[in-house]
């Protein structure tokens, strides 16, 4: 069964203090690993898709990396507006398997 575990559950940082969020996964043939951002009371907002080990993607202060067992979301010099819950999800490569399997998320708070 596909599984995703995110750590830590919650993280508090000072503005400008860089850190990383972890997403460990087991999946039957990875088709894609997805990162989303979710603000309170809203739906998840797409950030990145990673398809193969060694791949990296960047957007503003965020950088996502992927290995065969885990993905990291690196946040460089964060600002208070980066406060949100960050969700990781995997999609299996099994024929016909379209659903995303999500982790429970990391709740990130950036203090000014």
């Amino acid at each position, binding site marked *: 069964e596909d599984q*995703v575990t995110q750590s830590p559950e919650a993280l508090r940082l000072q503005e400008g203090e860089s850190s990383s969020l972890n997403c460990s996964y087991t999946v039957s043939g990875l088709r*894609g690993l*997805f990162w*989303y951002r979710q603000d309170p*009371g*809203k*739906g*998840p*907002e*797409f950030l990145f*898709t990673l*398809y193969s080990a060694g791949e990296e993607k960047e957007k503003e202060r965020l950088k996502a990396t992927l290995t065969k067992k885990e993905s990291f979301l690196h946040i460089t010099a964060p600002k208070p507006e980066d406060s949100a819950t960050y*969700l990781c*999800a995997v999609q299996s490569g099994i024929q*016909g398997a*379209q*659903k*995303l*399997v*999500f*982790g*429970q*998320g990391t709740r990130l708070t950036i203090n000014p």
Partner: protein
Amino acid sequence: GAGVSQSPSNKVTEKGKDVELRCDPISGHTALYWYRQRLGQGLEFLIYFQGNSAPDKSGLPSDRFSAERTGESVSTLTIQRTQQEDSAVYLCASSTRTRKDTQYFGPGTRLTVL
């Protein structure tokens, strides 16, 4: 263009009543998904529609849950005889049919069963 829209945004109902939740996908997106998010938890897959293919219902938690989709447009998720454990945010997502099919989410419907 417009994103995924869902209605209502909030629904409060009494235990035992039926509810219908609606999702309008992004225009041109052939795939549509429903997920459930309980308070403080990750998203759970419920059901997936792709064109005229038979839907993947493997995530529906009980026979009280059903969903329909008209062609490649609107979908409704129906919960019959609601129970308190059905209280959650119900999220809809849509994607294109290409291999690299990113799912884009709507704002969700918050369901509260009293």
